[in-house]
């Protein structure tokens, strides 16, 4: 059995088939990229996995558990974290509190304990902060610790979003266009981090990406989509040479 599996996943908006019976599997510890032209259904697949939309049909399995019917807030609890294409940070909070929200699934304190700020809450806070500091160091974010998100540049926000996802200590991370809006250097950094996430932290990565340099550099396997259907699946070079993929990008 694979680590993560989508079976005949479909998402229809009326007559529009955003995702049309897509099946794929992710093995533990690999980096799988999903590519495809605009509107191919890449982000929709992510939104199905994180349960922002309920799928029209099909099933999703993670660690041999059917998660298709799980409520959205449970997905993070299972160890699946995600980033968003158009950054969804908590704008009017500091970076530190943004990252601490990422720790939410690990918090075990009750409301009344928090109102009194009992020693258990204090101890929990220290653990959360230690973990957050590790992520901050991993992604070189020390300079922005107490800065409000609303005052930070786009490139930094993109990294902070990745940091927030890492703070939840995920087993599987979904990256929705991690390099969009980043310059060449920042994209380079991003590719090293994605590699390190796999090798150092042992996180399985599923990512949607347009930048083929980044895809080639980090991916173990690639899936190409168009019109909600899988065109090709395989190693980065295989998929790029596949006639259907060439036709989808360049027109036949």
């Amino acid at each position, binding site marked *: 059995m694979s680590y993560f599996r989508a079976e005949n996943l479909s998402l229809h908006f009326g007559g529009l088939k955003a995702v049309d019976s897509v099946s794929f599997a992710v093995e533990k510890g690999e980096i799988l990229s999903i590519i495809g032209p605009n509107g191919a259904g890449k982000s929709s697949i992510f939104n199905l996995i994180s349960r*922002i939309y309920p799928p029209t049909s099909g099933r999703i399995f993670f660690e041999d558990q059917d998660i298709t019917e799980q409520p959205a807030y449970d997905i*993070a609890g299972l160890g699946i974290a995600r980033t968003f294409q158009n950054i969804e940070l*908590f704008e009017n909070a500091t970076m530190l*509190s943004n990252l601490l*929200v990422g720790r939410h699934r690990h918090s075990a304190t009750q409301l009344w304990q*928090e109102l009194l700020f009992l020693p258990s809450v204090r101890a929990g*806070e220290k653990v959360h902060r230690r973990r957050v500091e590790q992520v901050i160091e991993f992604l070189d974010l020390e300079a922005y610790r107490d800065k409000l998100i*609303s005052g930070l540049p786009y490139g930094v926000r993109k990294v902070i979003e990745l940091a927030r996802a890492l703070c939840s200590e995920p087993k599987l991370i979904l990256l929705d266009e991690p390099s969009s809006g980043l310059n060449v250097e920042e994209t380079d950094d991003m590719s090293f981090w994605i590699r390190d996430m796999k090798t150092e932290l042992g996180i399985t990565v599923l990512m949607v990406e347009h930048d083929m340099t980044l895809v080639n550099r980090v991916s173990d396997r690639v899936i190409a989509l168009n019109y909600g259907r899988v065109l090709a699946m395989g190693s980065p070079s295989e998929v790029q040479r596949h006639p259907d993929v060439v036709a989808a990008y360049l027109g036949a």
Partner: protein
Amino acid sequence: MRFLFKTDYEDDIRLFPHSGYVVSYGILLAFLVIAPFVLSSYLVSQLVFVCIYATVGVGLMILTGFTGQASLGHAAFLAIGAYTAAYLQQYNVPFPVYFLAGGLLTGVVGALVGFPALRLTGIYLVIATISFAFIVEEVLARWESVTHGNEGMRVKTLSLFGQAVPQNGSAFYFLCLGVLILTIVGTLNLLRSPTGRAFVAIRDSETAARSMGVNVSLYKVKSFAISAAITGLAGVLFAHKLSFISPEMFTLQLSIEFIIVILIGGTFSLHGAVLGAIFLVMIDPFLTYLKDDLPGIIAGIFATFGADSVTASKIHSNVAAIASANGLKGAIYGVIIVLFVLFEPLGLYGRWLKIKLFFQLFPLCKRATFKRQKIYVKSERNR
């Protein structure tokens, strides 16, 4: 300017980031403790109202300021707390019990209001909470066996551990101050723990909060419940302060006053709730003063510039008619809200921070430091 050098996670967690805070809050506390012995009884009475309004402000701040859910129904929560106190007092229930019961019952009602509110955002949530407030007002007026309807209910003098605590005495002031301080400390505790951060997360992006594992519905209900419970506690004190309650005290205008408290104080910090409460309680005697003296002043000005006595008295009576017109207070409140939203959206506390920064940076402050930026408005597509 002071730079904090943090060496321990405690430095981030503690309530007072550095010794300067301890000193300034210590001075404030010392002033508040000696206040009833040096100030006139009128001012002490006003301070009691400040405490009660600030407590409601803190409650509303949790819901509106930190969770981002607007409410125009907080007068109803205050009423539920007040009526619980008045009702239980008839059966000689001791104060601590009906004080907590008032908070608890209001919290439960708040949670029940929270459930239908889960599917509503923005203006629709405001409409729903207004309707809730009207329902409560109507119930209070009609449920005569419990609330005595429009006749209202008398609230007996508070007695705590066998001691009478008259609503004009300093003991009652200390009680209200204590409740306010405990509420603020509890709320600060909440804000520095996972629940408080989940509230802020819901305010800024529900989608992201959900994908980080926050059960958005549960936390919204929690926020409603906590906010209502605090307002209910304030309601018990409110009932004692006024010693008489009737349904027409808990109208929409009172809810709007609570919104003014947090909006004018600044919706991003608990300081705002207290500053807003001071502003609101102090503006009332000012408006009364204007109502009494404004006609004379304006007529006097016209008289000095050569208006004859007939014109002057005509002006006097016209201005008096305007100043005592029905609903003028509401209109003035409306104007105040509009002006603050337009020109000082961060409220009094935001202004205070700007003044502080001006002096910290002193010769280096530029006009552009506080220039407001146009902020990209996030789409509501994924809510």
